[in-house]
């Protein structure tokens, strides 16, 4: 230990002040670097509308760990500021996307836990244990106009006439492709149809060994891309009334097409797909096309700018029956019946929706609002990306993304059976079994349809499916 006089000799006041100044600058630089994730862009100002009733007590929020880290930093501060304004003691816990369903199940079954829970896919299977949020949605519609249809369908069950969740936002699922690779085969603007995807993807793979990245595994992205293909071929898991309609020639045609796609343009890597696989593969230059949100490209902007500049986006691919893509994610906020902070939770959700422009901005245009009037500048941002897209209008196609996007239950609405079918990964398995040659496309569809019918029968018996 240094004697105090030696310490004072070595650390004079002048040197201390100088050192502190340098440390302060370094700290500021560190913070600036953190903020630099958004390339220095400054988001819209937050608005505060006082709650209709006086709030107090505590509010515990469970939210997913966002793929765009700047969003979580913004969200935590946003919650803190609101909590200070309304006098509620709020805590926010973020957990990994893959853990949320398990956590929700555990908390709901135990009858204690968080008051407000956010997931990024419909949670209709928990409907009997969560509050009906019809009044909240009605209030939001009164304030900001009609909710986007795909968000409404992802949170409303017509069989029970209840909003089992509040869906203030969603994330589109455009095609991400490597312009340089597709230019070489004469499609610089990428494929516009599933047929072009097959032809071009096969040619690129033959020439360069680079494959397409459409998962056929037990994970979220595989669920989405499988549905997009089914819909584009004129089939679906259920019809608008919630009747199972999977066992059709159109579904068999879709499965046969996916088999061709796999054999000519992919490798068995797609059977071990995890949610980060397409991001990794695209950024590593190992994939020519993926169906994903913009997060992979945002990652590349920072890690591999040259690849980011080469990535471009496409709307839903056209098939024989049209061009429909599943949403990538849809926000589902639920309030369990046990929640003691339910009133504060609902007020927070209104405040959050009112400020969705800031949420969209903080997520670097990843999250879009279910009430478009809340993000009046969205089209400007998408056509001139504030986060240095190269070229700046790269995301322009997302302006009308809702037109070519659909919810998981399309053409019907989300319900417990839709959630269970998604959670059981019946659709990716159906495609994978045929693609791997385990069974014919017709058998794969028939088996999947039998599983789906069994799931629907179970939930129908419980009154949760029409």
């Amino acid at each position: 230990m240094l004697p105090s006089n030696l310490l004072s000799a070595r650390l004079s006041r002048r040197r201390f002040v100088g050192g502190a100044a340098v440390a302060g600058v370094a700290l500021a630089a560190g913070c600036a670097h953190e903020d630099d994730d958004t390339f220095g862009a400054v988001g819209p100002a937050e608005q505060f509308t006082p709650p209709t009733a006086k709030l107090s007590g505590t509010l515990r929020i469970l939210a997913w760990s966002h793929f765009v880290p700047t969003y979580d930093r913004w969200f935590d501060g946003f919650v803190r500021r609101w909590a200070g304004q309304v006098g509620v003691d709020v805590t926010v816990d973020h957990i990994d996307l893959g853990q949320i369903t398990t956590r929700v199940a555990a908390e709901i079954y135990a009858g204690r836990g968080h008051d407000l829970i956010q997931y990024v896919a419909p949670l209709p299977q928990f409907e009997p244990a969560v509050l009906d949020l019809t009044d909240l949605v009605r209030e939001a519609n009164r304030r900001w106009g009609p909710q986007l249809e795909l968000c409404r369908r992802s949170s409303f069950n017509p069989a029970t006439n209840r909003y089992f969740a509040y869906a203030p936002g969603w994330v589109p699922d455009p095609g991400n492709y490597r312009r340089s690779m597709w230019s070489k085969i004469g499609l610089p603007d990428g494929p516009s149809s599933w047929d072009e995807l097959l032809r071009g993807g096969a040619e690129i793979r033959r020439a360069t060994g680079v494959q397409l990245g459409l998962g056929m595994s037990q994970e979220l992205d595989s669920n989405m891309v499988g549905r997009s293909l089914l819909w584009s071929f004129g089939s679906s898991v259920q019809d608008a009334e919630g009747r199972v309609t999977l066992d059709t020639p159109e579904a068999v045609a879709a499965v046969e097409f996916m088999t061709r796609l796999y054999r000519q343009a992919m490798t068995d890597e797609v059977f071990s797909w995890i949610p980060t696989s397409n991001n990794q593969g695209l950024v590593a230059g190992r994939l020519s096309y993926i169906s994903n949100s913009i997060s992979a490209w945002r990652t590349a902007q920072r890690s591999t700018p040259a690849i980011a500049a080469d990535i471009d986006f496409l709307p839903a691919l056209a098939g024989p029956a049209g061009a429909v893509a599943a949403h990538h994610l849809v926000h589902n906020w639920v309030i369990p019946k046990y929640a003691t902070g339910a009133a504060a939770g609902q007020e927070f959700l209104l405040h959050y929706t009112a400020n969705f422009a800031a949420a969209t901005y903080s997520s670097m245009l990843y999250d879009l609002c279910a009430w478009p009037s809340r993000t009046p500048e969205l089209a400007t941002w998408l056509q001139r990306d504030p986060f240095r897209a190269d070229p700046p209008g790269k995301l322009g196609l997302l302006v009308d993304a809702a037109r070519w996007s659909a919810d998981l239950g399309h053409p019907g609405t989300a319900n417990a059976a839709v959630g269970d079918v998604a959670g059981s990964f019946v659709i990716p398995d159906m495609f994978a079994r045929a693609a791997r040659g385990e069974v014919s496309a017709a058998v794969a569809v028939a088996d999947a349809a039998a599983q789906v019918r069994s799931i629907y029968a179970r939930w129908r018996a419980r009154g949760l499916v029409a």
Partner: protein
Amino acid sequence: MGHHLFPPRGRRGRDRDRALASLFVVPTVAYVAALILGPMVLAVAFAVSDVTVADPTFDWAGLAGIERALADPVFWQALLNTCVITSLTTSLAVVGGNVVARLMLARVYGRWLVRLCVLLPWVTPVTVSSVAWLWMLDSVYSPLDWAGRQLGLLGVGESVNWLGRPSTAMASVVAVQAWRLTPLTAVIIMAGLVSIPRNIYEAARVDGAGRWLRARFMTVPLTAPIVAVAGLFCAVFTFSDMAVVRVLTNGGPTHSTEVLATLAFRRGIDGGDVAQGAAVALFLLPVLLAATLTILGLVRRMVAR
């Protein structure tokens, strides 16, 4: 003439000992009842109910859930996979455990380091080690593939894609389970080897028994019960584990690595149908019960000897 240091106790004394012994056992019995027996009874009850995550009210559903499980081809695939993974893992872990146990007993410099390294896979939480293996077996960034490419076993840009094919995915799951459980079997077997009195070996050596004869007629019979216990522990841990499969393959590709534990979790928690999940999990019970009874029998025989 000698006298007893501890004179024989009377009947009252023996009764008091028994009562005290029973009292000491009470915490263990309570613990087992609360944390093992209770959940087991609950699982059986759920399997014959219609309980869901969102609606825990118990309504009798009879054997409908079990019939539904039996009619599901994925269930049979999961049952088969569970048995295959368990038997392969157990075989590998027992053989590996024997080798490692001898390594741990070898008189070499840095033996403590060898023992530490051997035990690391066992003391690392299974989810953490599974995530590490997930990256080791990644289709893009696998260091194993990189090493293969450096050694010329794989072409430029080529990867094995360990988790994307049923055969390699199954092999990966078995390998990770064996890697995880070999230290456990090694420690148990090492304890068995240490417990064999050295003078028996010395007598055999004096009688002219060579290394092979000593191993064949002494080491193997004397360690057989403890090896069996190690194997059974290994089988129980593998049979009931879901973490490795859940993290590495999530049952894929196309359920080729699905095991009963992951299927029960998927149906019961992810799908929200607790009754169906419990019905699937119920099939773990007879095998685990049989294994437990066998372990207890072997231990009793060892104690008696």
